[in-house]
């Protein structure tokens, strides 16, 4: 059994002939938040999407190395992607609720798993919405279209949707970059809460955010993992010159 909840071992990823990730070895311990920072195009999103195999959907992608969830390679033969994705939830940069009711958005994960017990679905939807700190705002309008919510509410709805199926890992790709400061603060608070139950890997462009929410931080540059350290160390005492330049705003 591996020490890490999720990890990559010597993973390289190619989009056709261009290499987007170079030999990356990195692990996330259970119930920790790890932030990935780095300049645009350095492979942060690509790295994140390894863990729920969303890169598979892009033509011409090739992955080398091992990506482990609970110590098991999720790219091994015989692993169903759908099963991986049920255990690894994802929140995207742009809120992407389904054009359905708030209730149906959160219930979706249960429905596709064949759950039909109405009571159970209702309870789960409420629990997920509470966990995502959205329940009080929407409990009287569960039938309303999710598209009528504000951007920040939509993003928390997307978090609730991911939480409803009780994944053990949550991937977040710049979850609050499209939101106002207050929604942003709410999401960060939420991440603190969620950490108790989930392992979280979050990509962010906002270094204050990385400093606030994460236990460990990884700095990526041009597809390489440059430095990976405890967040407070990485920001106060970076060992690599590139990291130093990046966090002091000298490039990126």
């Amino acid at each position, binding site marked *: 059994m591996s020490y890490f909840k999720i990890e990559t071992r010597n993973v390289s990823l190619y989009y056709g002939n261009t290499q987007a990730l170079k030999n990356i070895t990195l692990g996330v311990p259970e119930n920790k938040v790890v932030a990935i920072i780095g300049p645009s195009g350095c492979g942060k999103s690509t790295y994140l999407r390894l863990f*729920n195999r*969303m890169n598979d*959907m892009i*033509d011409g992608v090739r992955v080398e190395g091992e990506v482990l969830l609970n110590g098991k390679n999720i790219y091994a033969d015989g692993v169903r992607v*759908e*099963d*991986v*994705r*049920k255990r690894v*939830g*994802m929140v*995207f940069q*742009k809120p*992407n*609720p*389904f*054009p359905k009711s708030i209730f149906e958005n959160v219930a*979706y*994960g249960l*429905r*596709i*798993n064949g759950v039909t017990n109405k009571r159970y679905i209702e309870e789960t939807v409420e629990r997920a919405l509470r966990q995502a700190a959205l329940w009080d705002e929407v409990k009287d309008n569960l039938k309303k*279209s999710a598209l009528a919510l504000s951007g920040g509410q939509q993003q928390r709805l*997307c978090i609730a*949707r*991911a939480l409803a*199926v009780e994944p053990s890992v949550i991937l977040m790709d710049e979850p609050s970059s499209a939101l106002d400061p207050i929604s942003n603060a709410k999401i960060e608070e939420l991440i603190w809460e969620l950490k108790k139950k989930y392992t979280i890997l979050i990509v962010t462009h906002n270094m204050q955010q990385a400093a606030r929410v994460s236990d460990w931080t990884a700095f990526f540059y041009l597809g390489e993992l440059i430095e990976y350290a405890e967040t407070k160390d990485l920001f106060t005492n970076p060992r690599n010159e590139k990291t130093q330049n990046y966090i002091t705003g000298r490039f990126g």
Partner: protein
Amino acid sequence: MEHYRRHALKQRLYDTLFQVVALAGLLFAVMVLMWLLYTVFEDGIGRLNKQFLTSFPSRRAEEAGILAGMVGSVLVVLLTIVIAVPLGIGAAIYLEEYGRKNWFSRFIELNIANLAGVPSIVYGLLGLGLFVRWMQLDRSLIAGALTLSLLIMPVIIISAREALRSVPPGIREASFAMGATRWQTIWHHLLPISFPSILTGIILAVSRAIGETAPLITIGALTFVTFLPDDLRSPFTILPIQIFNWISRPQAAFHENAAAGIIVLLCITLLLNATAIYLRNRFSR
């Protein structure tokens, strides 16, 4: 300065000229249509009674009716919908969501686009060879519906693919990221979201089908039918054929029948379109 002023003046002149031409064109088209409708209604409205709607064709104009053509047209079109819509949408789903994007799929794509432009009489000949002769369906309702299905399927496939493609990629991603299978994503999201646009394509296709005459004449729909089809293998006739038959007779009384038949055809087309538009508006919240 002078040069610019003159240039601006010239442009404005062109502008006005174009408006006048466009308006004239529009008025001409509307007037022709109105005149057509007017003459049809003037000739036909008197014949449009219960006897006309419930009688079979006859040698005597005043005893003749549209029943066989009306029922035939409606049945053929309904059957065509039942056959072509599921197949067309299924093909679109396959090509758009399952099929690999390679030279073979591009080849199929190109062929479908070309098929949409093939003259309808060619489909008639194909239907005659394939359904009537080879499959020995004879000149039956089902042979007619299959032929029309071939005719409208390319249009349905193309518009359904277009509709599927225009679903925002975020929806697909979100569904797959939740662990949904391809089919679950299609069923829960892609089809409901693209349904209104798919329906628009179907409306266009079906409107075309109901007016098509050539392919059904080719496969041998009859012109003188004094019974209603009782199963899929029955011979049949359709409205346009009946109308054409009446128009080609010398007696004026038959021409009135033809005019009344045209009114019925117009009404059915409008009814079909209205139903489809109603459905579309209901589903596109």
